[in-house]
């Protein structure tokens, strides 16, 4: 009971500190803006730990963060192997292939008005569908190893990326295009000097959406069969063994990988579209 009380106390004090910080005079400084979410996250972790210990929650239901951390530290080798299999081989290769193919298709669509009218509604439609469902089919075609996971990822990221890129390529105004024409610019000159830069914010939006989709696709595809490694495989087998600390360790890996992946793309975006209003300030 003491621990539970302590948890409540800790929560209140964390909230109090955050309130003071957020409504204090320094609220807009960089340090405070970093500290507030950090304090919030740490309080959540600490409260979780205290509640689990205080209420004697069985490991099967919710392991304490410390147990997860111990499990994580103990099985870094295994986690690394799973990470390589699912993220690097499955998700990343599928991401590169899918986004690349979508980009090339988008140029084709951009060059032909007929394709734009025809393919875009279909693409919009497909982008909203539960494409993870193709996983069993693609696993059947490409086998259990990472190739089938990459294929699922390709299918999943293709349409969101296509739709975004096409929208971006039509972003320039008629006036700007006419100007390029008066300069006697060829299609490709106009493309590389005017329209591709203008499309960059949209392209990066598609790339950012695709990062999450890629990880989801690779993990879900492993539920339909995989070699004896990979994050999806480990999650489903560990759930079967009720080794929930292992499941949580994998989730931590997935969260870290997803966040870093997204962050890397966002960083690239900052470098590539430094001129865009949304990047200022």
């Amino acid at each position, binding site marked *: 009971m003491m621990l539970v009380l302590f948890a409540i106390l800790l929560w209140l004090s964390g909230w109090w500190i*955050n309130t003071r910080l957020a409504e204090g005079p320094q*609220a807009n400084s960089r340090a405070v803006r970093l500290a507030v979410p950090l304090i919030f996250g740490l309080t959540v972790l600490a409260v979780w730990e205290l509640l689990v210990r205080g209420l004697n929650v069985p490991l099967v239901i919710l392991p304490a963060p410390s147990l997860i951390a111990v499990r994580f530290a103990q099985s870094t080798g295994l986690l690394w192997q799973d990470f390589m299999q699912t993220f690097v081989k499955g998700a990343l290769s599928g991401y590169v292939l899918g986004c690349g193919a979508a980009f090339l298709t988008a140029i084709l669509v951009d060059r032909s008005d007929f394709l734009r009218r025809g393919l875009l509604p279909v693409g919009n439609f497909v982008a909203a*569908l539960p494409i993870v469902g*193709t996983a069993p089919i693609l696993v059947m075609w490409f086998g259990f190893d990472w190739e089938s996971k990459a294929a699922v990822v390709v299918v999943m990221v293709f349409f969101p990326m296509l739709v975004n890129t096409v929208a971006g390529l039509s972003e320039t105004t008629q006036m700007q295009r006419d100007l390029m024409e008066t300069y006697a610019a060829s299609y490709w000159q106009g493309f590389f000097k005017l329209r591709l830069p203008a499309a960059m914010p949209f392209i990066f939006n598609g790339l950012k959406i695709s990062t*999450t989709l890629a990880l989801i696709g690779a993990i*879900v595809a492993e539920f339909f069969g995989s070699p004896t490694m990979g994050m999806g495989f480990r999650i489903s087998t560990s759930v079967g063994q009720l080794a929930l600390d292992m*499941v949580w360790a*994998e*989730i931590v890996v997935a969260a870290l990988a997803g966040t870093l992946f997204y*962050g890397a793309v966002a960083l690239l975006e900052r470098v590539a579209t430094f001129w865009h209003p949304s990047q200022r300030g």
Partner: protein
Amino acid sequence: MKSFLAVLTVVAAIMAVWYVACVPMNIHGVLVEAERGGADVVPATARERRDIGAVALVTRNGFAIPATWAQDRPRLPAPHQVAIELWDTTLNKKITSKRSLVYHGWVTLSATMLGFVIGTVLGILLAVGIVHSRVMDMSVMPWAIVSQTIPIIALAPMIIVVLYSVGVQGILPKAVISAYLSFFPVVVGMVKGLRSPDGMQLDLLRTYNASRTQGFWKLRLPSSIPYLFASLKIGIAASLVGAIVGELPTGAVAGLGARLLAGSYYGQTVQIWAALFAAAILAALLVGLLGLMERVVLRRMGVAS
């Protein structure tokens, strides 16, 4: 009209590619059956055929092409096979039957809807909190954005096991996953919407001496509705994915996800494709329904013409 024609052409082209692709994809299986039936197959044994490309096999065994569109368990079923299976399992079966897609679809749909409603309500409440409390904004919002970047689906099997071990099973665990997936699009969209009134409009309300509550109900909430609908459309598609994925890891016996998994275990490709199309149709219907609601609501509000 021109667009309609173009869409039709693209769809027709996809169909044509699909039919053509069936031939090399299924040729190996078809030739094995043809050989058993006593037909003359050009490389006579299955072992010899294994090393030959599928296209070469097709050119040498032209007689087998029609059979590639009518196989029992093809690697790639032809469109009409999928259509027939869909028709069969939706309209020709009793809806209470375990083989009816309406039954499985309903199981998934009910979890989707329950989760979507829970997720939307919680999302709107959190968004209201975030807009009105600076502390919540600063503490919760960054984590909400981070949580968008992690594959939430990874949580699905664990949520189901955890809820199962405390005695909750059936529709609720799946609904929780659905709710989780539709939650954050709603939060993000709603926060953006509630903040969309500009300073001028807020100042106008202040000159009217409106209270904070009045400002919320009369200005912030109405101006957030277009944003809300945009995120609801994303949210419901995500909900459906969540419900389907929620059916995978537990070996559930009913629902579209269970249908996919069973089909993949027993090699029933036509069944997988039919379940996939059922899910697609369901998603399209749900998004379409929300789009319709959006049009009606916005028109009554006088926002859209």
